[in-house]
């Protein structure tokens, strides 16, 4: 098993890290701070932040409705949430093009815009926060909320003081997963954004283009930055997992 892991995962990572550092730190820095690279990274991170923030709110609302509300079609809604997990990313991009791209029945055309990137990322990251918050909401002790009410707390206060602190780790891990996904996403973006450097070229597309054009250094440099971000996010998710069990481990 360790051999398998090493060959499949560790070796490639080593190759990437080595290649990017091959010509020394100074060279690496020059390549990474090239204007096109910086633009791609800024766009990617900016979009990821927007999408993560939107997901934090909309994902929590959706999870709340799925757990606390009851209506016809709720189980259908619950099943549909996983669609972005099941659908190929390139089809994801295509579906958004179908409704919001050229000759859209709604009269909008967001193809080749930054809005398209945000929309594509929203599609792909939709399930994350919902699925991390749902189980936490299900486990919540309803009686704590009743106790708060009996002590005089209004609904907003109950949510703020009792519900939110308990679902926050769930929201944050969903956000971390969504952020990681958003930073690396390519399939859903490649058709819809137009991939215009400095305008709608995300980091993943930058790396792709520079591999195609033979610029392995440029591609590796940006790829290493993306790898670092992924590692950091994994640490955050692991840390959150540790923190959530802290309350229980005190006893």
């Amino acid at each position, binding site marked *: 098993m360790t051999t398998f892991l090493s060959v499949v995962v560790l070796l490639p990572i080593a190759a990437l890290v080595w290649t990017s550092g091959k010509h020394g730190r100074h060279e690496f820095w020059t390549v990474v701070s090239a204007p096109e690279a910086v633009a791609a990274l800024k766009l990617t991170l900016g979009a990821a932040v927007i999408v993560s923030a939107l997901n934090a709110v909309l994902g929590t*609302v959706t999870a709340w409705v799925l757990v606390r509300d009851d209506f016809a079609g709720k189980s259908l809604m619950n099943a549909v949430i996983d669609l972005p997990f099941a659908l190929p990313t390139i089809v994801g991009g295509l579906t958004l093009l179908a409704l919001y791209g050229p000759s859209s029945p709604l009269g909008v055309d967001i193809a080749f815009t930054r809005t398209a990137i945000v929309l594509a990322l929203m599609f792909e990251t939709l399930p994350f926060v919902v699925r991390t918050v749902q189980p936490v909401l299900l486990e919540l002790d309803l009686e704590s909320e009743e106790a708060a009410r009996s002590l005089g707390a209004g609904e907003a206060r109950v949510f703020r003081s009792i519900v939110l602190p308990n679902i926050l780790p769930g929201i944050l891990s969903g956000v971390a997963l969504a952020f990681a996904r958003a930073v690396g996403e*390519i399939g859903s973006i490649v058709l819809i954004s137009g991939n215009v450097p400095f305008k709608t070229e995300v980091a993943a597309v930058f790396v792709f283009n520079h591999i195609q054009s033979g610029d392995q250094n440029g591609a590796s440099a940006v790829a290493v930055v993306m790898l670092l971000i992924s590692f950091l996010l994994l640490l955050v998710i692991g840390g959150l997992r540790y923190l959530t069990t802290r309350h229980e481990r005190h006893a």
Partner: protein
Amino acid sequence: MPRFSLRGIAVLYLLAVLLGPLAMVFYRAFERGAHPLWTSLTDPNTIHAFKLTLEITAIAVPINTVFGIVCALAIVRRRFPGAGIVNAIVDLPLALSPVVVGLMLFLLYGRTGWFGSFFQDHGIQILFATPAMVIATIFVSLPFVAREVVPTLRELGDEQEQAAHTLGASGWQTFWRVTLPSIRWAVVYGVVLTTARCLGEYGAVAVVSGHIEGKTETATLRVQDYYENFNQSGSYGIAIVLAAISVIVLLAMTLLRPKEGS
């Protein structure tokens, strides 16, 4: 907050981002008529693309299933230093961009890569051929079985296995008769997720395949090919086939999803 407005927000959100667009795909596929749709879908290169996708999936899924089970067993049952690191490494493909994965493989197996010359001397082609695509797909779909099996194994505890040992069962017998049956639904769910991931893979294979029509194009790459060549029926046509498969996958996921909460 009033129930209706929350419910309304959630429903609107899903309609705008998921369901609306999906419905439009079906419309677009048939918009120019059934004939161009049929021609594109039955084009020999398209059929080859579907075949290639299925081939790669058929190789990657069993490998990752076995690995996932072995890995989960090691992480949960064997207390070895570094179990946490293994856990993190297995999770990495979830957080990493597929294009970066493709690049890494490029750097390993490309002409100027670490192993490039070795494979070239032996006449084996990795890059721009099926082997690289298989490796890439294995990498990106690595975590799913392991991630589903680990919590199930943890919850099960090893008492049943200990009982089996006291009754004389060997390690393999215990695994086959006791452990595997207990984790089988987690494994099945993991396999469903892995399969979906393999069928839908784009970024990594896009980098390592070279997009050679009729040779190294998967279904997802073909969608892009058709779209960029203004063949709307073709690209949306393949899209609805893939979407239909995804709906089946989604059904399987919904039915098999492990029950959450106590």
